[in-house]
């Protein structure tokens, strides 16, 4: 097979640019908003009030039990029929945030539960309220526990944002599709796009292990 190296080199920048102004900002924004949703949902899920906890459980169940692509389509192509028309970017950020919210909620809930009961008691014994204990004692420890699984969630999210190409967000993979359609060089261009994703994820994995090493310092082995 003949590889058009000129095409490969001229399409590299548009792909990287798609990552820089599309994929990465989309992933970062969705992850940040998604973590806030996840924290709220996790706390609701742990609530002693059964209605509150049931709502959280239902949310998690729906998010985890339906395909990400379907969630994207419901928001972008479905909502206009009830009068809610959103452009590609907001649709994508909402869909991915809600998705992260569902998955990360379970991670955060498990991390909160992993903090030993004695920590709650020690917090109470120095006079803390439930809320103070959660904020000052439990969540900081839960955060440490949840870094590895949440990093994995983030890396998955970076890859999943390629689905946003289907609702016209100009991110990395959409650029790839455009270049491939125009040049008809599907194999090299899609492989090139894959390589760009891979490099981004390599960076993220490296960052993840650095963060984990730092957090490890204060954790008993």
């Amino acid at each position, binding site marked *: 097979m003949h590889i058009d190296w000129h095409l490969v080199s001229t399409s590299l920048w548009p792909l990287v640019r798609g990552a820089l102004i599309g994929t990465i900002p989309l992933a970062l924004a969705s992850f940040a908003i998604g973590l806030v949703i996840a924290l709220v949902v996790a706390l609701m899920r742990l609530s002693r009030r059964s209605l509150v906890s049931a709502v959280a459980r239902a949310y998690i169940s729906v998010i985890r039990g339906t395909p990400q692509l379907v969630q994207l389509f419901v928001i972008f192509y479905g909502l206009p029929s009830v009068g809610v028309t959103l452009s590609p970017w907001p649709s994508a950020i909402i869909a991915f945030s809600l998705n992260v919210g569902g998955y990360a909620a379970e991670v955060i809930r498990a991390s909160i539960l992993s903090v*030993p009961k*004695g920590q709650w008691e020690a917090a109470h*014994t*120095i*006079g*803390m*309220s439930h809320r*103070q204990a959660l904020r*000052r004692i439990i969540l900081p420890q839960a955060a440490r526990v949840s870094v590895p699984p949440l990093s994995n969630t983030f890396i998955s999210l970076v890859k999943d944002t390629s689905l946003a190409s289907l609702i016209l967000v100009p991110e990395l993979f959409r650029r790839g599709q455009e270049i491939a359609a125009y040049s008809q060089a599907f194999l090299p261009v899609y492989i090139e796009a894959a390589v760009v994703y891979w490099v981004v994820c390599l960076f993220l994995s490296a960052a993840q292990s650095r963060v984990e090493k730092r957090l490890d310092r204060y954790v*008993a082995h």
Partner: protein
Amino acid sequence: MSPTDPGAGGGRPADVFSAPVHDGAPLLTVSGLRKSFGDNQVLRSIDLSMARGDVVTLVGPSGSGKTTVLRCLNGLEVPDGGAVDVAGELHLDFASPLSRRQVAALRDRSAMVFQHYHLFPHMTVLQNVIEGPVQVQGRRRDDVVPEAEAMLARVGLADKRDSYPVELSGGQQQRVGIVRALALRPQLLLFDEPTSALDPELVGDVLTVMKELADEGWTMLIVTHELAFAREVADQVVFMDEGYVVEHGDPDVVLREPREERTRQFVRRLLSPF
């Protein structure tokens, strides 16, 4: 009690190094305390009284409810019945349901030292100590830090100020646990088997600190199996079994010539385990 007025005075020494306050005024009166977990009646009727500056050791077989007594006094468990009076200032009757505020008031009067320390692993030694005074009691950090440093120096941990709990031995962690409790300026110190999780060679350091606190006039209720410590330091030994106080009084009497057969058996078993 306002958040800026922790401890509310009486019963504790003016500062850690001050002279004992043995004025004999009643500090703690527990009457008819009851607590069940499901069908398990753990505390059937517990009576206990301590004067200001008293050191009382609570002994009894495993599972007899010693920890539960301390937890009730620290508001970690809510008793099913009975009453607790602290210094004639706070009176709680558990016959009727209590508000969260009332439980918090009880907790403000006492501080707990746990068997397994339960230090906050994400905080340095100093942060562990000042967390309660600063975050809960609303005292100024600048006032609390020198006090905390002095107390750490007092228990031989001045150089561990910025260490994290994982970097400390068990004995050092427990001494931090004690300083964390002292920093709250409680009227009553509760110790739940403070040396049981320690390697034998580290027990002495912790007991020495506790003896010094007793000499300084702190009011202490201690669950322990260290009978030598009880005999030397305690004003009163309380022997519990099956949810009741079986026998209490002078350590030399209760531990040497117990009246009750159950106490005798318990002491004999502790002195010669096999």
